[in-house]
């Protein structure tokens, strides 16, 4: 593509000289004999560079330049002043009006040509850069759209409603630190009376942990052999938490995806209130009784993926109004620059200080406490917490 230069000069002879010089070097030239005509031609001809005389009747070159630079359609077109005024003041003024360069008359052909070429090259490079930048921004936008769509898919795996499971009330915080993260949780019915509750956290950040989290969630979905066996005409056999964790440890060895994950898995019998639990390398769930007393559910083993497959299991009885909180370490490791980590003590305090408050209120209070502690600093890990309140055995 040939470059096009607009020559603006009220003297015919000057226009001719410049036109001939540039055309001889295969640069397209269009000419204007006044400032007003130059502004018109900018729109019609879209030149790549303007050679602009300073001293012209009516509108002088400074004014033309000021207008070109004020219009975002023409601001990026380089302007070179060309004038008999060789004084320092005029050069400075020309440049301060936004011109790129200045050539004094009488000029040397070689100098004009060299400056024009240099600015055309600079303009081409700038334009390439802008184009590439635009392409990158578009690509980035598409990627972010994909990420948001992926996050929606992941979000579809968590419970949709607070009362999704009869017999318990659910509440949660679920804030991936990027658009999408490696935390996920669920509450699913296993049979008429039993419910599985879990929360897991895949190592690393971004898309791969998110995909693995969804894969694990699928293998823990209701109807999966890992969580319950169904044989024709037989009652469902529900796998114990330790069995489920051992199964995951077998199915997701460390080397398979070059990641590990931590998880706490609980089975609650809604009829009796019996709760069985086990954690694999995961922060212990926190039990807050209706009377405000607190204990952690520590039984379990190490992270999933090591292939040891040995997980201890604990069991206890819940009464109506007791609450179990599952969470990932993004909460306790939420950081203040000076005061360190939020830590388990602050978490327990936020969850147990007001036993009379509803779970929704408590989760909201915790979110506020995290913000207040971190000084409004954005979390560097996913913030995930699932609150489960046992409502007591169903009425007979």
């Amino acid at each position, binding site marked *: 593509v040939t470059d096009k230069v607009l020559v603006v000069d009220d003297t015919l002879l000057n226009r001719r000289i410049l036109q001939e010089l540039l055309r001889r070097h295969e640069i397209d030239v269009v000419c204007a004999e006044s400032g007003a005509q130059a502004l018109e031609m900018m729109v019609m001809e879209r030149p790549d560079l303007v050679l602009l005389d300073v001293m012209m009747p009516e509108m002088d070159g400074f004014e033309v330049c000021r207008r070109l630079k004020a219009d975002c359609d023409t601001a990026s077109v380089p302007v070179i002043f060309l004038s008999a005024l060789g004084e320092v003041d005029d050069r400075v003024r020309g440049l301060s009006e936004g011109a790129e360069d200045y050539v004094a008359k009488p000029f040397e052909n070689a100098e004009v040509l060299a400056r024009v070429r240099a600015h055309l090259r600079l303009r081409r490079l700038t334009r390439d850069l802008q184009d590439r930048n635009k392409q990158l921004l578009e690509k980035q936008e598409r990627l972010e759209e994909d990420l948001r769509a992926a996050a929606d898919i992941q979000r579809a795996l968590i419970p949709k409603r607070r009362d999704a499971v009869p017999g318990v009330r659910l509440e949660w915080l679920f804030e991936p630190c990027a658009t999408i993260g490696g935390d996920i949780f669920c509450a699913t019915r296993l049979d008429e009376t039993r419910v599985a509750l879990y929360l897991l956290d895949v*190592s*690393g950040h971004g898309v791969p942990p998110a995909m693995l989290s969804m894969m694990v969630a699928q293998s823990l979905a209701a109807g999966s052999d890992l969580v319950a066996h169904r044989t024709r005409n037989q009652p469902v056999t529900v796998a114990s938490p330790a069995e489920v964790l051992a199964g995951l440890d077998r199915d997701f060895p460390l080397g398979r995806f*070059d990641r590990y994950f*931590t998880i706490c898995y609980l089975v609650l019998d809604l009829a009796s209130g019996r709760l069985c639990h086990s954690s694999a*390398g995961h*922060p212990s769930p926190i039990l807050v009784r209706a009377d405000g007393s607190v204990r952690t559910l520590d039984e379990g*083993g190490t992270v999933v993926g*090591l*292939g040891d497959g040995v997980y201890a299991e604990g069991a206890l009885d819940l009464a109506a109004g007791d609450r179990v909180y599952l969470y990932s370490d993004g909460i306790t490791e939420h950081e203040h620059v000076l005061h360190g980590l939020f830590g388990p003590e602050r978490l327990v305090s936020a969850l147990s200080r007001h036993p009379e408050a509803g779970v929704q209120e408590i989760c909201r209070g915790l979110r506020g406490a995290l913000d207040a502690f971190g000084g409004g600093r954005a979390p560097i890990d996913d913030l995930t917490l699932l609150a489960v309140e046992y409502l007591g055995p169903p009425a007979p």
Partner: protein
Amino acid sequence: MPPDRRPAGPVEVFTFGVRLDAAEAGPARSEMKRAIAEGRCLLVLDLGPVRYMDSSGLFALIASLKDARAAGGDVALVGLSREMRTVIEVARLDRVFALYADEATAVAALGQGAA
């Protein structure tokens, strides 16, 4: 930056930097893998300087433990600050890794197994 690496008899000692996070975990893992591939599969990992470790960093340690044990070796951790000890304990990895108070004890303990 990969961790600092030096031999101590049959044991290979690695010292990590202040952060062991997503950016540092890759080079750390590669360096430990290389040592194990060279037949140096008794590793003492000095976490003394580490002030921050995320799950990617922890993965590098766990993966190296698996690699080392598969090659007939073992991994010991030393120099754990209170924070690092908490990270290890929450993940219940204190039962998986051998933990020692200092490098000399760890090198002696691992080296004894080799002798």
